[in-house]
């Protein structure tokens, strides 16, 4: 057996197992979320019980997002560029902002959307929504404050036909692993230091798989970080 065939076999076995695990976790999350909904709907639940139930539901939703990400990575691995659907980045960012906020019931989250265009069609379909959601979630998780403000801006397309979506948080420091060469070699870094980066690593990996790229920068005054995803323009018969 040549090494390529051996590797493909390993990859397929891993994909199959991860698919089964993902399915079982989603089933368990379904039960947790539904019973929490029953608690929230109960007139017997007082204010503090409701608050706990809302927090627990947010954690179950976060767990669901992580599993969906694994499933997404497995699916994107085998997708061909010709099969990529398109998505309107303007509508997608607005939808994803709401979803991200729901995952943090204890924080007050404000999105400042500075995009000027009405629509920005990019290649990637729902995969792009997952990328944006993961970036926003980590940009919120990195912020220790009770109030979080994210600035979101879509620009482009540039001369090469790419849209840029910037997500900026002026209240966080850019993690060392995302700085300069750290980002380029992130997969070989010590994972024990890669805390609160699951979403950014997902964004970098999956963006690359669909022909785009991911960048992270420290703001010039050293306070704040900006995460940028560049995605191919879609909808022109590309």
């Amino acid at each position, binding site marked *: 057996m040549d090494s390529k065939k051996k590797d493909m076999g390993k990859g397929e076995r891993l994909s199959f197992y991860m698919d089964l695990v993902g*399915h079982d976790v*989603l*089933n368990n999350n*379904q039960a947790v979320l*539904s019973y929490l*909904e029953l608690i929230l*709907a109960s007139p017997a639940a007082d204010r503090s019980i409701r608050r706990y139930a809302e927090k627990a539901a947010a954690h179950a*939703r976060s767990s669901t997002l992580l599993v969906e990400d694994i499933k997404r990575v497995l*699916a994107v691995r085998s997708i061909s560029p010709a099969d990529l659907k398109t998505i309107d980045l303007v509508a997608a960012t607005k939808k994803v902002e709401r979803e991200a906020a729901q995952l943090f019931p204890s924080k007050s989250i404000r999105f400042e959307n500075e995009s000027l265009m009405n629509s920005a069609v990019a290649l990637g379909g729902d995969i792009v929504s997952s990328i944006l959601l993961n970036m926003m979630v980590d940009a919120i998780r990195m912020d220790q404050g009770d109030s979080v403000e994210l600035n979101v801006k879509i620009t482009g397309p540039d001369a090469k036909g790419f849209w840029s979506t910037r997500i900026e948080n002026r209240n966080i420091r850019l993690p060392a692993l995302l700085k300069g060469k750290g980002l380029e070699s992130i997969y070989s870094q010590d994972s024990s230091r890669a805390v609160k980066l699951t979403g950014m690593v997902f964004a970098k990996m999956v963006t690359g798989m669909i022909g785009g790229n991911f960048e992270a920068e420290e703001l010039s005054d050293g306070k704040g970080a900006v995460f940028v995803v560049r995605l191919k323009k879609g909808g022109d018969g590309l």
Partner: protein
Amino acid sequence: MTSVLIVDDELFIVELYRDILQLRGYRVIATAFDGEEAVRKYGSTKDKPDVVIMDHRMPIMNGVEATREIIKLNPQQKVIFVSADVLVEKEAREAGASEFLSKPFRMDDLIEKMQRLSS
């Protein structure tokens, strides 16, 4: 009272549906833990359920195959297909499912689909 057949291989999910549906006034008339059992029970029961809630991944016969068989027996049967595999929606609808819910769903989404199909 709207009657329901629940088909899912996970006992805790069957219990979850039963808890939600009974609380909202629906009557669970039967349960099945795989597609084959569902088709057999459906074929042998005189009083057909108003709605079938169908999972996809199950031993012996999956949800798409079971839906296809049930629709063959009764083309008017309403089926809510529920799965964590969103890619299976097209296949499920082609098999005859009236509605598709992706897991995890909100309880109100399930009830809204139940109401739509039973009205």
